[in-house]
Every structure is written in C-alpha cells, then in structure tokens.
C-alpha cells in the first residue's frame, strides 16, 4: 500500500529578540510540538532534520543535528542531518521528510528549524548577512541586507505594472493585523494604512513595515505517514500533496526573469507543485507565501495564479488576501509580523497550514481543504513550494 506523508503536529517558541541560546530555542519549540500531540513521545521519533543557516556564523556551531538531537531528547536511527537553504530550510526539511517517510527509509521524522541571530554586538548579524547572498559577487556590492534588492524589485513592479505604495502598505496592514493576537509572533500589534504609509524610510520606496524584522526563533513539526498518524491522533489528516524547489541562478545579474518583478522561477515552482499535487490555482483556499517584503507577496499572488500577472497590487490592495477575500494569505501574520528566523519559517508555515486544514486556526478560513506554502531564498535565487491537502493525491 502506498505511503502518504502527513504533517502530524507542530509548535514554535516565542519569536523575537530572545534572551536565549540557539539550542534553548530548539528545546522550547520541541516542547511546543509535543504539547500539540501528547500521545506522541520523543522516543517515537526515528529521524531528525535540522534547518539552520546561521548556526555556523552566529552560534559557532556546525554539524548542528547531533547537538539538537541530544538537547531535544530524540535518538534518530533513520536520518539525522542539517539542511541549509537559508529562508527555505524548514520547507526543504519537510520535502525531504516526505520523501523519507513515503519511501520507507523513515517512519516518524522531526523537522526542526531555528536561528539565533541577535549576537552580543549588534553589528555582527548584519555583517554576517554578507554570507546570505553570493559572497564574492553580490555581498561585495553591499547586498547582504536585502532591502536594496527589494527596493529595485518594487520599483520595477511599479514601472511595469503600475502598482502603488498604498498597495504595498495594504500587505503590511493585513499581515500585522493577522499577527496581532498571535502569542508567538514577534510583532503583536495592529497596524493602520495611515501608520504604514507614514513609517520611517528604509530604502525608498520601502518603509519600516514593508520589511520583515530580524528574528530569533525555532519551530518544530512531525512528518509521518497517514497510517502511522492515525495511531497517534484522531484529528483530520493533513497531507503534503506536492512539492517543488526551483533554482535557476545565484548571482543577481543572472536573475531569470525579464526584470526583477518578473518571477519566472516562482511561477515554475508553483506550476510544478500544482501538477504534483493534482490541483490548480483556483483550488487554493489559503496560502502562506514568503512576505520577506510587502512587494514579495504582491508578486507571489500573481506568479501562483491567484490573480493575473501585474494585478498583484490591486489584488492585495482590495482585501483579497484577507479573511473573506479570494485567497487569504499569511493568516498567522507571515514573515512581516511573525518574524523570520530563516530555517524555522517554512515549518511555521506548515504548522499554520496544519491548523487551517484541521479547522483550528486563529484566523480560520472557512472550508480550507487545500493550501499552499512558499519560500524564496538568497537574492531571490530559489523558490520552494508545498501544497497541503485534506486528501492524499490519488
């Protein structure tokens, strides 16, 4: 009988500026995950994937997986490894775990992700971000911190498609308001359009609320098969129906689109994941897309086919991403308001999708049965898409 991967449970620690060590954050998140499924114990876990990109630079720790395994009390026998795909690390862990449990290599895999980015001296993480892009060719141009790159992206979207600053601000407002009551989000406050429009400048046209913060945090989820899941939980099963990960370049000069607002690789990843999941854009009831910047979400809703190419600004500006809209997006607050500890973000998205598809989300989308999560990583150099559903692919 075919084995179908499901996300069984998940939890995250409080995200933000944390007075804690990297391994503390993973322990807190593991506890939150097992609290979500009291019938499952650490001894039941046979595989561990750790997603962390900055452990090496900010915590002086490579080969992180055994460290985390020991601290969270699991003793892996099928897989114990770390993945580094920066912002897509958590999602990549889930993709790999799906392959491992469906092939029978593993049965119950803990996918964890986390970063401790705030170091004792503030300069270090900002400086270390030179490693986030192609070091010799983009880092040397001061592109480690992403606001300039996404300023150029926003300007080209405005040039080619006529999107406006108000439409960008509408994304920030929607996502902050989703997070206002999220107890683990970094930013827990409501935001008005006026506040967003009058915020301090970062790199024009981007202002404060257009940019996600730097975040300490961790998240943990459990990936297993549907048959095993039934032994531990009587909640509805949430399947990982299809996935894709597309990388066409690394250096910014080789960006695959006609311009920076043409995300050809995002579209490719979406189409491949839709095909694998046997769904179409119209089937997506809820999405968690990579809103590292407000402009990112505007372009993502276009490339995933929630609206026509070039109409993302209007889509987001007319409340289509809010509850009651065509596709509610980033219903837990997204990167903009939850924060973005790189390796943890894809797991945070998976947990929100688990809750949405089980009907227990804070901002529940009625009738949510199919959902999409997405990450971009590097200088917009890689795109990762997962499609979750209440039924397996047949």
């Amino acid at each position, binding site marked *: 009988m075919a084995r179908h991967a499901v996300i069984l449970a998940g939890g995250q620690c409080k995200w933000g500026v944390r007075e804690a060590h990297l391994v503390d954050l993973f322990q807190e998140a593991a506890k939150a995950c097992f609290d979500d499924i009291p019938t499952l114990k650490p001894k039941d876990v046979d595989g561990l994937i750790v997603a962390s990109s900055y452990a090496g*630079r900010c915590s002086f720790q490579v080969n992180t997986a055994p460290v985390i395994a020991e601290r969270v009390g699991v003793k892996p026998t099928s897989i114990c490894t770390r993945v580094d795909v920066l912002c897509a690390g958590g999602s990549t862990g889930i993709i790999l775990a799906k392959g491992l449990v469906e092939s029978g290599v593993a049965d119950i895999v803990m996918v964890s992700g986390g970063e401790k980015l705030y170091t*004792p*001296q503030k*300069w270090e993480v*900002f*400086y270390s*971000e*030179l490693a986030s892009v192609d*070091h*010799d*060719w*983009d*880092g*040397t*141009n*001061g*592109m*480690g*911190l992403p*606001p*300039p*790159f996404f*300023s*150029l992206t926003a*300007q*080209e979207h405005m*040039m080619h498609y006529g999107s406006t600053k108000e439409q960008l601000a509408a994304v920030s407002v929607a996502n902050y308001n989703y997070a206002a009551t999220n107890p683990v989000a970094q930013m827990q406050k409501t935001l008005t359009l006026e506040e967003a429009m009058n915020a301090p*400048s*970062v*790199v*024009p046209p981007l202002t404060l609320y257009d940019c996600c913060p730097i975040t300490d945090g961790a998240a943990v989820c459990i990936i297993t098969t549907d048959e095993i899941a039934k032994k531990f939980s009587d909640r509805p099963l949430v399947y990982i129906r299809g996935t894709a990960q597309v990388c066409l370049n690394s*250096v*910014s*000069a*080789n*960006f695959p689109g006609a*311009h*920076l607002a043409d995300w050809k690789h995002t579209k490719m990843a979406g189409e491949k994941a839709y095909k694998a999941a046997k769904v179409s854009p119209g089937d997506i009831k809820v999405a968690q897309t990579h809103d590292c910047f407000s402009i990112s979400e505007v372009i993502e809703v276009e490339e995933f086919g929630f609206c026509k190419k070039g109409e993302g600004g209007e889509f987001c500006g007319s409340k289509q991403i809010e509850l009651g809209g065509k596709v509610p997006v980033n219903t837990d607050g997204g990167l903009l308001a939850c924060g973005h500890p790189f390796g943890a973000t894809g797991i945070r998205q998976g947990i929100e999708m688990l809750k949405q598809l089980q009907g227990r989300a804070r901002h529940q989308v009625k009738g949510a049965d199919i959902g999409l999560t997405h990450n971009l990583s590097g200088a917009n150099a890689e795109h990762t898409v997962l499609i979750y559903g209440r039924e397996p692919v047949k």
Partner: protein
Amino acid sequence: MAVLGIPILENLYPSTMDMWPLEAKEFNRNWQFYENLKQGKLTTTKCKDCGLVSWPPRVICPECYSENLEYTDLPNKGKIIVFSEEVRGVPLGFESPLIHAVIDLGVAPARRILSRIVNCPAGVLKRGDEVQLAVFPVPALPIDKGKLGTVMSERVFFAFEPVKK
C-alpha cells in the same frame, strides 16, 4: 590590534570575517579576473569550445563542461535601468549613500548587472544615466607563508560611477 573579547586573535586575520573575495592565486582559480581589474579592465570567461560567455567567471563552462576557457573583455560603460539609494542604516563596510543599480552593459551576459554606484551623492542619479567602471583598492590579503612570514597580497574590487558630462 586586539579583537574585543577575544585577546587570542590579536594580529590574526580571520578570513571568515572578510567581506572581500580571496583573490590571490593561492586561493582562487579566477585570480586573473582581479588582475585584469587592476589594469582597469572588466572581464569574464568565454568557452573556447562552445563560445558561451559566462558571468561571473568560471573554471568550467556551465554549458558544455569544457575547461578550455579564456578571458574576454566586457564593456566598461553602461546605462542605469533602475537604482536604489540607502542613506541611513548603511551596513558596516559601506558608506552612505549606498547606491545600487541594475546596469545594462549592452552585451550578454551583462545586460542587467547589479552593482554599486560610487563617487556619487544621493539625489542626483536618473534612470538612463551613463555610468563607467570604477576600480578601487580594498585591504590586502595577509597570507601565511610559513617560514617566509606573512605576505600581503594586494586586492582591488569594482563598482560603477557616473560618467562626467
């Protein structure tokens, strides 16, 4: 000079904290790119077998996997397609204003090079402005040569600057 909090690193060079490339021949098979820069030339590698010009330079052709590559000149002048200006909050290692631009050098694979604009105050650039290559020195690379001691290997990097009208 002591490193705050880590006295054992006094006078030691940690390459893991170096924002510039390890350009020296001992550490980089594309060292010729940087030597060409020192002569004021922006270059990249071209495959002598299939003809593909790659950016950035390589040691194998990504298309046909030939190792038979040669350096070829890229234009030194181009036009700004779009640019951004960061005045406050410029990261360590860079000066305000930190200006980035997508530059069209007129030939593939350099139709949309994302680089930095230097020698230019904030608020004066326009889309379509002509810019030219600007090569500048960056700190020399201290290479431990054993009994010979530490040899300083000179380094340069590049950006673009407005063409004076």
